[in-house]
């Protein structure tokens, strides 16, 4: 990548599995995850960083996959919503909390919200309920599901404290 080029070979680890492909430099990480890697749980909404639906976890941090080029994620560990549950299908606590509290309706915004909450609750530092709620400012849900999401966050925070 030391010379300007318009096409690259990229390799990264997605949900624990290596993935390599030849792509154009202008391809976003979100498009790469959906079109080349087949992880269609990555939902592209606005494609300019507002809606939060495309949020994935890159090297432990929740980021907008529409605001990052695939070529920038070379060598990174990427987790999409498909990689959150255990291999045997056991839900992550975030997923359990969201299911129990009915924190989704149509589900379009859900993968992004799950990724943000997982990145925060699985991180090295403890996260407070206030921090989790503040991070929700980066997601838009049009089904008026916010109350359910808030309850799920309360349950998560209570579970972490217990």
């Amino acid at each position, binding site marked *: *990548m030391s010379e300007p080029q318009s096409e*690259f070979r990229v390799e990264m680890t997605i949900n624990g599995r290596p993935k390599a492909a030849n792509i154009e430099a202008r391809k976003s990480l979100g498009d790469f995850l959906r079109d080349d890697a087949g992880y269609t749980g990555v939902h592209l909404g606005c494609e*300019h960083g507002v809606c939060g639906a495309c949020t994935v976890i890159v090297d432990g941090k*929740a980021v907008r996959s*529409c*605001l990052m*080029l695939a*070529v920038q994620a070379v060598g990174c560990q990427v987790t999409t919503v498909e990689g959150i549950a255990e291999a045997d299908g056991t839900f992550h606590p975030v997923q359990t909390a969201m299911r129990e509290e009915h924190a989704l309706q149509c589900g379009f915004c859900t993968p992004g919200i799950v990724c943000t909450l997982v990145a925060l609750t699985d991180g090295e530092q403890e996260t407070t309920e206030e921090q989790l709620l503040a991070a929700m*400012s980066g997601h838009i849900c049009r089904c008026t599901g916010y109350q359910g999401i808030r309850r799920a966050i309360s349950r998560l925070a209570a579970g972490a404290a217990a």
Partner: protein
Amino acid sequence: MKPAPFDYVAPTTIQQACQVLSDAGGGATVLAGGQTLMPLLNLRMSQPFILLDINKIEALKGISRCQGAIRIGPVTRQCEALANSELARELPVLVQALSHVGHHQTRNRGTIGGSVALGEPAAEMPATAVALGAVIEARSVRGSRRIPAREFYLGPYMNVLEPDELIISIEYPDWPQGHVTLFREVAQRPGDFALVGMVGALAVEGGKIARAGIAWFGMGATPIAAVQAEQALLGQSIDGIDPQAIAELAVADTAPFDDHHASADYRRTVGRRIFARTLGEALNIRKAA
């Protein structure tokens, strides 16, 4: 929605990056965190020939102490600066301002330098650099120069950098321990750009204001230093300051505008109020201490 085709390059040293900028002759655009540039690329409002990604340049990252200042590398992520304990201790107002920049997810990618370089007039980082008296160091193959933040901005998204120059550091001068911090913004939602905002610091020695740095954001075409207010504060005893009068002077330096979010009059009115309240509260806390 796809960006127009471009050539991408991600050098690992400042020298290589400067060479790319020099060779491109103005046809290159620098990609830092990309939280503004990527939307512009996706919408094809930005169509560079070359996209110069500086995220792989380690020398542009990190927060360090240098002579009389804290030096922040431009590619330091906003989330890293937010979690930095030295910054929280030495320049608490910078950290406070950062917590209002975008959302958790955009701060994970967004950088200090990107926000400073972009110069959105309603953003927190450019105004904070102006208020605190930061100095921006730019490098090109022709050499380096140091630009005071107060001379950096020409207009919305326009600054004094030449097309071949790259910001390599932002130095925030030391403010004495226990300095008074000022920050308040009015925005429609958390993470939005401010309708009106102010940020600043006051150094107090022997009960008198020894140094003042205050700037507005969302109150004109660039971040605006409240120069008249700063000068009026200098040398004043903290017991004798009239926040209302200072706020009047501060608003006199602004040039706000009407838009579909708020009118210029609204901005002046709210600006005057938040300035007076923020200054008054900060001084009361100081007096009580």
